[in-house]
């Protein structure tokens, strides 16, 4: 190994470390939950409850959908965290002759906006199949 090459390799190291950290951060952002033996971290548990308050009456128990709102465990298979946030905050409408789907905007609702990442974490855990239906148990703090 020639010196210049070794030097070049050394120079690359911080960049590699940076990109690995970035990848980990991205993964953490897209999968912000911790599930161990069916038990969840506090944030994910809080997401379960906030979901129950603000989302369940349309999207059904456990994010499983209803006759008038989509199954979110399916939706989050092809939606990013960013897109999820966008729709919850701004709402969206899909009103045609055969369907009238209206997601209200939750941008000004304290109990949703403050815990948006928690709600996402819960639903993403459900969507990824790592968390079953019903009330999850909490991991010890």
């Amino acid at each position, binding site marked *: 190994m020639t010196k210049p090459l070794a030097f070049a390799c050394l120079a690359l190291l911080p960049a590699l470390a940076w990109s690995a950290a970035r990848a980990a951060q991205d993964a953490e952002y897209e999968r912000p939950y911790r599930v161990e033996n069916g038990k969840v971290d506090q944030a994910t548990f809080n997401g379960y409850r906030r979901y129950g308050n603000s989302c369940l009456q349309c999207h059904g128990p*456990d994010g499983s959908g209803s006759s008038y709102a989509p199954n979110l465990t399916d939706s989050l298979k092809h939606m990013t965290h960013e897109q999820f946030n966008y729709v919850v905050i701004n709402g969206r409408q899909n009103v045609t002759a055969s369907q009238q789907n209206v997601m*209200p905007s939750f941008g000004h609702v304290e109990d949703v906006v403050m815990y948006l990442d928690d709600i996402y974490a819960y639903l993403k855990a459900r969507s990824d199949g790592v968390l079953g239906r019903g009330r999850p148990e909490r991991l010890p703090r």
Partner: protein
Amino acid sequence: MEMLRRAALALVLATAAGGASANPDLLRLQRDPNQWVMANGNYSSWRYSELNQITRENVATLRPVWQFSTGVLRGHEGGPLVIGEVMYIHTPFPNKVFALDLNNPGRVIWRYEPTQDPSVIGVMCCDTVNRGPAYGDGKIILSQADTTLVALDAKTGKELWKVKNGDPAKGETSTMSPLVVGDKVLVGISGGEYGIRGHVTAYSLADGKLVWRAHSVGPDNEILFDPQKTTHLGQPVGANSSLKTWEGDQWKIGGGATWGWLSYDPDLNLVYYGSGNPGTWNPSQRPGDNKWSMTIFARDASTGMARWVYQMTPHDEWDYDGVNEMILVDNLQVGNQRIAKALVHFDRNGFGYTLNRENGQLLVAQKFDPAVNWATHVDMETGRPQVVKEFSTRAGGEDKNTQNICPAALGTKDQQPAAYSPRTGMFYVPTNHVCMDYEPFRVSYTAGQPFIGATLSMYPPKGSDNLGNFIAWDAGQGKILWSKPERFSVWSGALATAGDIAFYGTLEGHLKAVDVRDGKELFSYRTPSGIIGNINTFTHRGKQYVAVMSGVGGWAGIGMAAGLTGESEGLGAVGAYKSLADYTQLGGVLTVFAVPN
């Protein structure tokens, strides 16, 4: 003598026409079995017909004779009206109304589709259902999702007047069927999951002008209570009977939505209905009895003043709304008393109540599903349910998951109205057989946003693999006569007829007829989608027909579309845990049946 009789008759008619409360036309029409002029058949909410062409013997040959698609794919609650030779049907949001020609089945005489801001859909708690319009004085009166009450000319569909009954920006919406009483139309409001304050309002049938409004909770002058004359179980309620059961000004977001059914006794001139859950579902956030949520009201139809009230579930901890229909029956034998004027009510809380509807005296309160466990019984002196601590979500407190409460929040019975047959003296009741876990937690109130504060899981009672029953009930004794299990909750309004059969629909989409004597199934036909609508019957050119809307949805469409929790727990067996989606899909179709000639 004949002259004298005619003169007397003319006098009676003149008085009736001039009187504020009588509507002789409707009083007569609601007794005519050939038509179906109000949602629950008559003012007493019997859902019964004297027609007897369809009988125990021939009902098996019943066949669909024509169908009509509404073009809307949401939960179709309520049912058709039939006035003369025209049938009126309605849809969930966008709340279309069709006038259909019975002489040329399915031909549309007129259609009406209101323009509504679709954002109202987002504040309707449990699908965009509507339980249908009312008829009176040549008008069809529709209560739209956005709380606009509109009167249409029954002949042309032309708008005659419109009035706004609430504000969807605050979570106020409408799902209920109004009731025409005399020269007024009465309507309530939905939004119990949004911290609204419920009310029933009377508008002038002629021009939509507000006549009176009675809130469920609040100061005496807003709930139209007279502290001395309004009674609870025979005792005057006293001043501030609602306010003093709330902490601070929590009554302002106190709920008591009035989204159920209205009944009317023309002799007493009293209108009867129930109120829904108080404020948030988290009981710890609203200490007190939360009066007058979860209450049966008897109000003077002319003034709105409350004659008597009875609170069934003080300080609700389970979302057992008291809005189900009030069935008015006469000469009911209760023990050794004969009650000239009784009221029978199947509450979400699982108790079947019988009261004296003249004075609100409590006569019977018994469980109409043996699975009911949240209370042991109702104390007949105080009228209070004796709550079992194990199933008290208040005793459990915030952030504690209280398990195995029966019934679930959707109640042993929801709004789907029961039928009463004066021939048998029995009630035929569509019921749910579902239990729940309930965990309350703290929430903040934002106008127009969900104000729930509890998470729920629902599943069948231990040892059961059916989620519903269709039962016959003896309201004098408070006993189940027979009970026919159904795979899913029975979410359709029943019909009883003089052919001694009772009809109901299932969530899979079957229209069924059973023998009133024993519940034996005599007929079943699978309509295109799950039935949450109410069945009616009428004649056209002398022939009896039966009609029902199918189109699954409503609260039955939530959870059951996804199946209940507990699939993996192996509690029961066949089918009960399978998702409703395996049996039916969305729809919106009217089906009219007849026995072939």
